[in-house]
């Protein structure tokens, strides 16, 4: 899963006192080329070739008209692709769907992960079993989990309809889940939440462990217990964690791709078509590389704005409390 895309805000990025002064290493140092550069260079080359260059290249391409099949070279057309995107009803639909998915996903993942973390933070007997159960979906390849969900939702011999109809006797609830726009979107949200909650729960648990025992004991002394303690003491102490989990969840909400690709192909109709998928289709089915790049950039900018906004809202709140 996308563990590797966790944006870690590492405070040691600012030079910390224990970072040593430059060491001149062996013979190379005498030629005045800092030896650190040589250690970093191989990794940097990879990142440059496959990420930094593509980032710039895609930015340029978004300002051109370039069909991979028909055009020999990209033709510069300025911001036309960007204007076109907002008049393109398919793109607007995809953008709306992405936001609808993102809003539900964000709320569900944040609230349930926090609630589960609070439960797992109690010293219960089967704690380690509960933890394993909640965390294990993190390591299951998402596209394969989507295949399993597809099967569970299958109307005739799927687990869900069997359970609702034959086990609970609620036959009126059984339905072809992926043939209706609303339930199809709901299914995608459920799969995405199933796959993500474990990871965000780990982040919240780490935040809970960071609250000092003194704070909790002082609260007990003042008579704060149970839910009161949770709402007045524990939740406000997690500000830093909200920034981290919020950032992770926003990025993953707007990057949704695998779930609709495998489960619905964007359907029925365009009811679960998302931006990522529309960029993919535009580029690799219609080979309209310029327009696809512009749509990708729009998504990237939206993510950037929301992440920055989330960061500052979190910071301002934290400063107010301090």
């Amino acid at each position, binding site marked *: 899963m996308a563990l590797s895309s966790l944006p870690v805000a590492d405070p040691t990025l600012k030079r910390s006192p224990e970072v040593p002064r430059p060491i001149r290493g062996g013979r190379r140092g005498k030629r005045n080329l800092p030896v650190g550069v040589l250690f970093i260079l191989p990794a940097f080359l990879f990142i440059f070739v496959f990420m930094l260059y593509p980032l710039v290249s895609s930015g340029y391409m978004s300002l051109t008209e370039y069909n991979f099949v028909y055009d020999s070279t990209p033709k510069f057309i300025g911001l036309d692709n960007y204007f076109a995107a907002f008049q393109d009803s398919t793109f607007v639909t995809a953008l709306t769907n992405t936001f609808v998915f993102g809003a539900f996903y964000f709320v569900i993942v944040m609230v349930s992960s926090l609630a589960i973390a609070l439960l797992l933070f*109690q*010293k219960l007997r089967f704690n380690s079993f509960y933890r394993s159960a909640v965390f294990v979906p*993190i390591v299951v390849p998402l596209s394969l989990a989507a295949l399993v969900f597809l099967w569970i939702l299958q109307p005739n011999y799927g687990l869900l309809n069997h359970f609702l109809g034959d086990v609970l006797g609620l036959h009126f609830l059984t339905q072809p889940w992926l043939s209706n726009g609303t339930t199809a979107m709901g299914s995608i949200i459920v799969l995405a939440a199933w796959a993500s909650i474990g990871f965000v729960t780990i982040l919240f648990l*780490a935040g809970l462990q960071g609250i000092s025992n003194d704070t*909790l004991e002082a609260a007990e002394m003042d008579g704060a217990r149970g839910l009161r303690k949770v709402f007045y003491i524990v939740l406000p102490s997690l500000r830093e964690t909200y920034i981290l989990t919020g950032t992770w969840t926003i990025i993953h909400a707007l990057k949704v791709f695998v779930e609709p690709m495998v489960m619905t192909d964007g359907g029925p109709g365009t009811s679960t078509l998302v931006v990522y998928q529309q960029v993919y289709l535009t580029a690799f089915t219609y080979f309209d590389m310029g327009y696809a790049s512009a749509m990708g950039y729009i998504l990237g900018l939206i993510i950037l704005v929301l992440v920055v906004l989330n960061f500052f809202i979190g910071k301002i709140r934290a400063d107010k409390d301090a």
Partner: protein
Amino acid sequence: MVKASLFSRVWMNAVLVVLAILFLAPLVYILLNSFKPAGEIFQVPQSILPKEWTLENYLAATSKGFINYFRNSVVITVGGVFLTVLLSSLAGYGFAKLPFRGTNFVLLTIVATLTVPLVIFLVPMFLMENELGLLDTNLGLLLPNVAVSLPFAILIMRASFIAIPQEIEESATMDGAGVLRRWWTVMLPMARNGIVLVVIMTSYAIWGEYTMAKTLSMDPPAMPLSVGLTLLKGEVWQYGVLAAVIVLAMLPPIIVFIVFQKHIVSGVAQGAVKG
């Protein structure tokens, strides 16, 4: 935290049991289905447990197409993890112990790439690999996977090297060891925990990677499991076999998870706390 009252403990256990069932149900369901004979999978009403246990699906899973997907996934994952560990432990050491003018700028640039959605890179990646003839090859998937895994791996390795006290390295310098030897013989063994975490995280990421694999491998023999198996989603007659293959594809990461759970959770948690 202080122990909760008996009543609320019962209540919390009940909620957690329901949650555990919900999270595990899809995995248990596919596992049980993989042992059902073809006829039973489509039986209405269903039985959750197979009435007749069979291994025929697993035998069929060894057919050529599936073996191919497995081989591709293994090659890309093993090669990708090896390169990621090597490059990130070099770079992490460079960032932690050998700073030069501009180190912070380079590091921030690398960290910033973590917020860029992959979809922006896809078109240039595709055009580049098309030029170089890397489309539909294992190498063509391995290399970009390494690049995408590196930023996070570098952060982990950098943090592990920073945690090693300066004196240890200084005493090695006195003994006259060159910087590359210090890195290999002294520092790398001490950064073992970081390396384990990078190996585990990167294996998961590459084994399950879908987006780049979907874009850069269009020919079924070149596809890894994560993409190849999704081609079969409509082919109903294959469901039993598909279930067996899905189970086999999910098993390696789940086994690694069970063995290393404490390590993984505390590793992720530490990264988070530092943030």
